[in-house]
């Protein structure tokens, strides 16, 4: 799938994955690949500018944690991020339904 199709929705995708449980950047990329069945193949580094922006906007919080002999920056949703994630899901469902009606496909 073309990376430019995903880029505009990356924030929503990251918030959605973090709504399951906290994760570090590599874990987010792995989960995104797993859930999308490999369809979302963005350059892995692109998640970090997005995560930093989400953190500056107060939607996620992060801290360094040590584990498995490595130091990782782990991200979690804030209360505001949780609301943003739910809002993004609702917006996407509405968009997908409208696209399906126009394109004549079932969702």
């Amino acid at each position, binding site marked *: 799938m073309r990376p430019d199709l995903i880029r505009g929705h990356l924030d929503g995708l990251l918030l959605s994955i973090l709504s399951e449980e906290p994760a570090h950047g*590599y874990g987010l990329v792995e989960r995104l690949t797993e859930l999308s069945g490999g369809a979302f193949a963005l*350059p892995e580094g*692109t998640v*970090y*500018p997005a995560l930093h*922006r989400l953190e500056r906007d107060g939607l996620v919080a992060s801290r360094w944690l040590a584990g498995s002999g490595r130091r990782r920056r782990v991200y979690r949703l804030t209360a505001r991020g949780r609301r943003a994630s739910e809002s993004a899901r609702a917006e996407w469902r509405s968009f997908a339904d409208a696209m399906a009606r126009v394109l004549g496909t079932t969702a």
Partner: protein
Amino acid sequence: MSAIEAYLAELRSALRVKGRARRRILAECAGHLREAASGHGEAEAVARFGPVDKLAASFDAELAAHRGQRATVGMTLALAAAAATVLDFAHSGRPDPAAPHAFAIVFGIAGQVAAVALVIAVVQALRWRGTMPPAGALVVLARRNRVAVTAAALTIAAAAGTVTGRSLAPLGAFGALGIALWCARRGSRLARALPAARGSHVESPLEDLAVLAAGAPVVGGGVEWVRNLLDPVRHPVRTCAVVAVFAAAGAFARDQWEGAATGPAALTAGIEAAAVIGAFVALGPTLGLRTRRRA
């Protein structure tokens, strides 16, 4: 040097971000690459991570956007404090009869330029809040902040030269101006390092307002109506002419209300109109209101 070390060295060189943010970026990227390498090998991990130049540009742009918006907020508060101090001083002091008339003209014109630059910067910052603006918009915001601070400095200096009186107000105004200047410099440093900084960019204030008013149909409709008639980006000559006429009319009416004779009031109106046109021609490209005409 391993593939990961070479990648990180290239990223370190390409990043314009400095300080703690830079250290964090490099540490996170290093951790990710080493984790990925344990499963796929270093070459594959580096290939999957993405091109260095694009990634560095994304990090720089993201931080530039954040700092630009924060700078606009800080500047607005500082310049509002400076303006309140200057107005208080202007009302409590006495006009200096020996002061050149040019000081009063600079006070009036620079003050309006500062106000316009600041308002359109605030509207732009609000429009892009919570989203990632294009690089051109970051550059325009930085320029608007710098124009606002520079014009405010001229206004305060002109006020200090025009009014006499015993007061610490000018010191307070310059102090607030110093804070605004620090905010503007911090907000613009990264934006000026972006590749887009060298080009000409436009950002219509009315388009920003239309985006902000999108949730309010009546207001949004009104903004679109005005925009179709008067938008400095779409209709530069018409917009400049209309604003100049209104500004001149306002200056004339104000002077008449203050008891000035028709002749001097008309002269003030003429100066006001010339100032609007001159500012639009000279500062329009810098403020992102029109493109720079190529020779």
